[in-house]
């Protein structure tokens, strides 16, 4: 008896599995297995995944826009940052380009639709020769999908986000969760006009998220690092003393202020992470001009001052957290 094990299809070689994945479709439009597979290769590529976590309108996409803008066009940056454009980063590449273009023209990048999985691949190549390169991926999710994991909403992520976590678990991929919480959260009907209620809601979301990871994704927790970022820091009134400070003094001042803010306004997060390896800091994309349009009743926003200091700080910190090396190394004579 003869067994025919022909693996060709009509004379054509069947495509290799990795070639089957090359697709112009959005990652979010693919089935959960394909999504999981795309993330399962990260550890082999020595790639760290960064996921911004926050409520809708917390500023996740704006943070990414600011970071991408700085990485690509930032003045005096200490690194070069080529963007990956092969699957699964192909559409993320376009997203990053759009983010950068929007940002430099002062436009606010669009809110993510539910189900979004924008994956941006980037390689950090420090200017200093001896420093290692760092492969990163940023996953931009919709705030609506993230808040589904709140205890009150059923503590369950969407199938696509679960698929991402399943893929990451395969090889214990290093992961950085950037918990983004706004300095002034937006009010909802149920808050009854109280800003404290809004702060409370923010605190609960992040606590629920940390708890979810700890309880349901212990593998991820073992390889995870946390950044707590207070966004919209520009909404914090600047004192006269602050205005007169130089950049180093401002950084030191902000660090103290942000810790005090988290302790006071996000007590659950503070208690959860205070004794762990966590980084916290403020963030501002720049100054935003808001003008009401009386005919349509909408508010029109425009970024009028781009901030370069916060993204520079973020990139340096992210690099040092992932590699245990600093891009901003000072010579001994500079330290004196």
């Amino acid at each position, binding site marked *: 008896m003869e067994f025919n094990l022909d693996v060709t299809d009509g004379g054509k070689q069947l495509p290799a599995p990795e070639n089957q994945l090359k697709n112009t479709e*959005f990652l979010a439009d693919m089935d959960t297995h394909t999504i999981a597979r795309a993330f399962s290769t990260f550890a082999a590529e020595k790639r760290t995944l960064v996921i911004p976590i926050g409520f*809708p*309108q917390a500023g996740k996409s704006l943070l990414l826009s600011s970071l991408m803008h700085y990485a690509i066009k930032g003045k005096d940056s200490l690194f070069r940052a080529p963007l990956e454009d092969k699957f699964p980063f192909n559409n993320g590449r376009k997203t990053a380009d759009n983010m950068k273009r929007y940002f430099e023209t002062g436009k*606010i990048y669009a809110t993510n*639709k539910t*189900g979004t999985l924008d994956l941006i691949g980037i390689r950090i190549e420090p200017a200093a020769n001896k420093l290692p390169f760092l492969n990163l991926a940023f996953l931009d999710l919709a705030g609506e999908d993230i808040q589904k994991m709140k205890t009150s909403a059923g503590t369950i992520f969407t199938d696509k986000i679960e698929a991402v976590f399943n893929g990451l678990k395969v090889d214990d991929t290093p992961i950085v969760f950037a918990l983004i919480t706004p300095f002034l959260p937006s009010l909802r009907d149920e808050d009854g006009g109280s800003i404290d209620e809004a702060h409370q809601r923010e605190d609960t979301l992040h606590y629920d998220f940390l708890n979810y990871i700890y309880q349901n994704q212990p593998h991820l927790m073992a390889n995870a690092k946390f950044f707590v970022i207070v966004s919209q820091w520009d909404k914090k009134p600047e004192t006269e003393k602050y205005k007169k400070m130089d950049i180093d003094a401002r950084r030191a001042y902000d660090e103290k202020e942000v810790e005090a803010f988290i302790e006071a306004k996000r007590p659950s997060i503070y208690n959860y992470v205070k004794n762990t390896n966590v980084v916290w800091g403020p963030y501002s994309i720049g100054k935003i001009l808001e003008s009401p349009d009386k005919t349509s*009743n*909408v508010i*029109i926003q425009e970024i009028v001052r781009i901030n370069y200091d916060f993204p520079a700080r973020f990139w340096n910190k992210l690099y040092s957290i992932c*590699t245990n090396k600093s891009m901003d190394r000072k010579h001994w004579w500079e330290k004196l």
Partner: protein
Amino acid sequence: MKTYLIFFGKSQDFNFCAFDENGYVDDFNVIIKDFDLLESDVFTIDDVSNGQILAKYNFQVKAKAFSLLKLYSLGQAANGGRIEGSIYGVALLSENDILITKSNVSLLKALKEKFAELSLIGLKFSKSNFKDDVFSIFDAFKKQGYFSVVNLGDLPFVSKTKKARGYLVDDDLLVAPDSLKDEINNTSRLYFSQDLEHLKRAAGKWPDQFSIYHNEDGKYVIYKEKRKADSLITVRNADGENSISPALQNQEYEIEKQKLRDIIKVQSGRLNVLFPVTLLFFLTTAVGGVIYWKSATESKKNIGEFQEPPFPDSSGKVNSALRVASTSSENNKGYLLDILKNKDKFNILLRLCQNVAHVNNQASLTKSDSAMSYHAIKLCLFQLGADSTHIDFVQHKPAKKALAPRESVSRDIVGGSKTGKGDAQINSGSEKARKKTPKGKGGKTDKGAKTTDGEKEGTVKSETKEGAVKKTEKDGTVKKTEKEGAVKKTEKDGMVKKTEKEGAAKKTDAQSDADRGNADGQK
């Protein structure tokens, strides 16, 4: 087969409320888990001026096909300032195909208007939760029995491609004509909008995922941006400027280019024979005075058959020259002789040559030099009233030694156009001389110029110029060689450096890995 009525919007977070004939669907995950098609990836709101968008998706969830028809527009969150991606709208979802009919679109419009009336002020949500408002709309909808009014087809056809198409539609109908039926049946994501600029922005952002179609003579075809009418190619010279018509550029260019390629292909064979003959001819003209006069007269006649490229490209590229197709057109031969006799016409022809040379020097032009020259020639001949259909091209590879530095060529041209009567002769004399110059007999060649009608002064000037040209050429050649050497050297250095760099990079990579290993170890 159930049909659902869905209200959606980003009142604060994006939210939706779905109803079937029985009432509110409490857990929509039971019907479609993580339903996320009410917002759009590709064609979404991006400006306060955006009009409303009608969209139709046919899709499949766990082997079950659905059809979605939604009408949406800008709706800013109650406590937010973002425009991009902020929407509100109404949708019909069914397990049957929802047809794009006037009735269905009108129904969606009426529902959306009511929704806006209750939950928005202008284009901004007045509350972060619109659930109570849409309940009242649904009650009215159900009471009127409008679920049965929805135009449904058979089972929805789901295309494998998820690429989206945007259709530019007229007026406020937002209804696809019958010609679009097949497209609707074969495409899973369709958008209809009246806002061309909005469609173009979406296509610009997602060129692989989104294409625009518009109605052209009753059929929907891919929209192509028309070329700008003001992109005239202008050929300037010292005296003025001539423009080549956009029609010639845009429509005829491709045809002409192909013709030119064919001609060059054919003529390149003849060139090998023609060029040595021409060279021999010019050598003969340089022999003596009286004989030269005769040969000069002879050369005038011969111009009808062949003319050397007046300004060969110094880069050594294949050049094209005007050739009157003597074999096919005796009329043009006679016409050209007529031009040579007529001073005004001759000056125009001279300007034509200047144009050609000028165009040859336009390195920044996107079209090839030869094609540009061709157009300039066509234009000038058109001005002269000649029949340009008999103009052919001869591919000419100038001998390396005959190359003149570009700078000296253009100087000659400008100088030529500035002087008066004898300029043509002076130029043509110096032109001949230039061809001879590389052989080191340029000065002598100018004697030929002396025998023509040109003034003596002019001739002397021409001689002086020639000498200068010769010197420049020599210097130029030397300099060029030196430069080339320098370039090569730099390239070599560059390579070395590059190699070194590569080595360094590799080293860095290896080091990086080692460092990474150390880092991991430290961890």
